[in-house]
């Protein structure tokens, strides 16, 4: 049998061997195979461009105009972006988006991590618990929001009645601006922790038990093992889940809109809710899309920062 490894390399693409005088590189040949592959892949690429690039470019054009849902309107350049950055409503929405995202990401991660660690212990019925704990994430948000509305919205809802019985008086969970913001954030943590639990569970299962064994022999405490072994070894997965949850939180429209509509008095209006209202209630498409682009820009920056952390978190 002839081994291909013993044959001299074929110079299929006209490259000169090192050290030889160059008679010029041969141009890369367009092979029939290359044409075939390109032609076969072209429809998929075209579809991707149509579904992604075209709407994005169209949106960018809209952001540069003062249009409505029906017409593009006059060209205004970057006025919509300048208007957003000078608008107190934009900054109020940005502030709430920050609070909502921070509590959503870290609140769900802490609870998800705690439950993932708990599920690793041998407790009776852990299999059933694992399934039940997934429910908040699996149930459609419309159903969850309706349930939470039933639980907290009116004076005769179960939670306000319980709060009154416990001596807290008439608690207006969705009518008081501060409480409405808190309720929305708690709701977000509730529907997000199963995702974090799953991500963390998968990361924990990849940690070698031998590492813990060695640490135990060396006399490490449980706290030391958690901080010095567990957290660093699952860091990569943690950063990835933070990136994903940040994107989910910033872009989350139904969670907020179905529960409070962005109120009361704009207390729970995030940037995406603001963009929706500006486009579909005020009919200012250009301004609304500009808000969405600003939001996207910040998301990209945050994602890049967190991706760098991922690279730094590689343990050798």
């Amino acid at each position: 049998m002839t081994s291909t490894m013993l044959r001299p390399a074929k110079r299929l693409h006209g490259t000169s061997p090192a050290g030889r005088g160059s008679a010029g590189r041969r141009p890369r040949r367009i092979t029939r195979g290359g044409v075939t592959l390109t032609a076969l892949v072209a429809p998929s690429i075209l579809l991707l461009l149509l579904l992604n690039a075209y709407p994005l470019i169209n949106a960018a054009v809209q952001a540069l105009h003062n249009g409505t849902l029906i017409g593009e309107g006059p060209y205004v350049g970057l006025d919509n972006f300048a208007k957003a950055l000078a608008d107190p409503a934009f900054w109020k929405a940005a502030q709430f988006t920050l609070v909502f995202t921070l509590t959503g990401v870290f609140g769900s991660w802490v609870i998800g991590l705690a439950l993932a660690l708990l599920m690793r212990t041998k407790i009776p019925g852990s299999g059933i618990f694992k399934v039940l704990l997934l429910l908040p994430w699996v149930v459609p948000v419309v159903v969850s929001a309706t349930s939470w509305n039933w639980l907290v919205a009116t004076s005769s809802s179960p939670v306000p009645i319980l709060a009154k019985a416990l001596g807290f008086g008439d608690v207006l969970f969705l009518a008081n601006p501060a409480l409405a913001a808190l309720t929305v954030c708690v709701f977000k943590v509730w529907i997000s922790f199963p995702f974090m639990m799953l991500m963390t569970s998968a990361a924990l299962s990849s940690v070698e038990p031998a590492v813990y064994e060695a640490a135990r022999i060396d006399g490490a405490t449980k706290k030391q093992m958690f901080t010095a072994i567990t957290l660093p070894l699952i860091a990569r997965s943690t950063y990835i889940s933070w990136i994903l949850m940040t994107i989910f939180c910033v872009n989350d429209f139904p969670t907020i809109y179905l529960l409070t509509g962005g109120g009361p008095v704009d207390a729970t209006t995030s940037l995406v809710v603001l963009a929706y209202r500006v486009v579909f209630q005020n009919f200012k498409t250009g301004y609304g899309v500009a808000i969405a682009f600003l939001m996207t820009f910040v998301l990209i920056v945050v994602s890049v920062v967190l991706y760098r952390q991922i690279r730094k978190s590689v343990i050798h």
Partner: protein
Amino acid sequence: MDVFSGNSRNVSRRGFLGFAAAAASLPLLASCGSGASGASGSGGGSTLKVWDMPWGPTEYTNAAKSLVNGYSGQNGAKATYQSIQWANYYQTFASAVASKTGPAISSGGGFQAFQFADQGAIAYADNLVASLKKSGSYDDFLPGTFDSLKTDKGYVAVPWQLDMRVLSYRKSLLDKAGVEAPTNWDSFVTVGKALKKIGVIGYGTATGAGALIGEQSILAMMINNGGGLFGEDGKPDCVTDRNIETLQFFQQLSREGIIDPAAVSYTSANLNNDWKSKKIGMGFSVPSLKSSLNETDDDIQIGSPLEGPHGDKGTLYYVNNLMMYTNTPSQQASEAFLAWYLDQMKDYWQKGLLQALPVRKSIVNMPEFQKDANNLKAVKEWQPVAKTFAARSTKIVSALNAVDGGQAFTSFAQQVLQGQTDPKTALATLQKGIESVM
């Protein structure tokens, strides 16, 4: 072995690519050439596309479809019915109009015709109105309903039903509280206090996610007091003495505990639940509240229009309308269909398929309509004093669509119900918000 050798392989690959290109081009060819709404071939009658929303239960949609599809006009003109869901209906229409694939005729939201008229998409109904006047049908319409649809360029649509805000109350609760239905603002407070004493919400309302009744009822009371959001010239004019007085009235209701503070975040579902479970004594609502709560007795009744502190009476109403579009196979056919449809729509009220109020006196006088005392009262007592969203102006403009249900108005209503903001400041903020969207 060189895999690229062999003529037979080259031919089959080219053949395959050619086949793939032909297959890909078929959908493109099929999508080309649609043209205007329902243009038939040469020599045949026009087919008019008619879009409508579900204004009533499924039976209404079925009846409307049957009525429209059964139309047979001059020169073989036909009509096809399509039901458009309320969710994102405006976006549906906007896309269709922009791409010239929309209907020839449609029903729509109160300001829709004005918005599309601004875009040049509406066929003005002046010819149709003239023909209705000539035939005498025009006099059958309730006064003021056509005028609300007139612009400087002509009639943007013709009226077909009314949506109004009236004061509803639950008689059993008022009887239990030992009071009669209020007739003016002072007695309103008295009744509210009495209802609160028996553990009932005096004035039920909602300004939460998707609930417009709260802000519309505040405007209804402003109109009741001779105020409104706009001046007679149609420009935003919110900071007026009458409007300030109205907001002070709402502050009084909040202070007295007549308004449930949780109402700020109530959805329509929350509000309806409270009405159903007899937790609310009074509130502004649509005239058909009783039907929407599926009640058949006469416990939910409509009061008479309240007299404001200066003797004014008034409320908010919307003249829902039928509009014609320029994207039609034949404007003549559109007008002929619409004239015919206006005469046929009595069927909806005859069969009890529509809870909205009719605009035609002949329908109001039908025994089937007369047997609903609430609806009759709404038409007889409230419609004569009702004003549109544009009050104090009489001219509706398309930008009102961005105000009604818009962010500024919703936030304003929530501030009013919270009762913590100074009325002048709240109105000034509202005016600024309205000016930014108009």
